[in-house]
């Protein structure tokens, strides 16, 4: 079965520091995409970053980067220079099939001033 696991229900980071959120998944596919979404208190899910599995290079978007380990089926999100506005729920997502996304249970990130 295709699953997505986020083992950290909650994480805290000091402002300006770096934090890594973990995500593991299970699939038999060889070519796929992986996504990290952010959900602030406003509830609106926002795409943070996505990774194409066939690309060796880890995706980077400004302060956000991923550590993609295909063999280990691991897809962690690193947030550098954390800001107060980064406080939110973060969800890892894997598209199971053409359209059906499987989301992890989320990690709540707290940013401490």
């Amino acid at each position, binding site marked *: 079965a295709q699953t997505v696991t986020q083992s950290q229900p909650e994480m805290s980071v000091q402002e300006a520091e770096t934090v890594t959120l973990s995500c593991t998944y299970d699939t038999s596919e060889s070519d796929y995409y992986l996504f990290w*979404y952010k959900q602030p208190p406003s*509830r609106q*899910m926002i*795409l943070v970053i*996505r990774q194409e599995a066939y690309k060796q290079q880890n995706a980077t978007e400004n302060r956000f980067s991923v550590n993609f380990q295909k063999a280990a089926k691991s897809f962690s999100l690193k947030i550098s220079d954390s800001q107060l506005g980064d406080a939110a729920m973060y969800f890892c997502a894997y598209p199971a099939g053409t*359209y059906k996304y499987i*989301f992890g*249970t989320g990690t709540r990130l707290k940013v401490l001033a």
Partner: protein
Amino acid sequence: GAGVSQSPSNKVTEKGKDVELRCDPISGHTALYWYRQRLGQGLEFLIYFQGNSAPDKSGLPSDRFSAERTGESVSTLTIQRTQQEDSAVYLCASSFNLLSTDTQYFGPGTRLTVL
């Protein structure tokens, strides 16, 4: 519009009543998705629409749930005879294509509370 919009933002209803939740996707997006998010949990896929194709209803939790979409426009999710376990945030998303490579753009959700 600039983004996906949903209405109402919050809905409180009594057990047994019917509710309708509305989603306006981004103009030009052919694919539309509904998800349910229970408190403290991830997103649970409910249904998707792609253009005029028949929707995949496999994620709907019971026959009390139904959804409609006219062409590539507004979608309505209807829950009949609501139960307390239906209390959740219902999120709608749209994407340009029905492809697993396409980014989904989410609305702010409707928080449904069934008393």
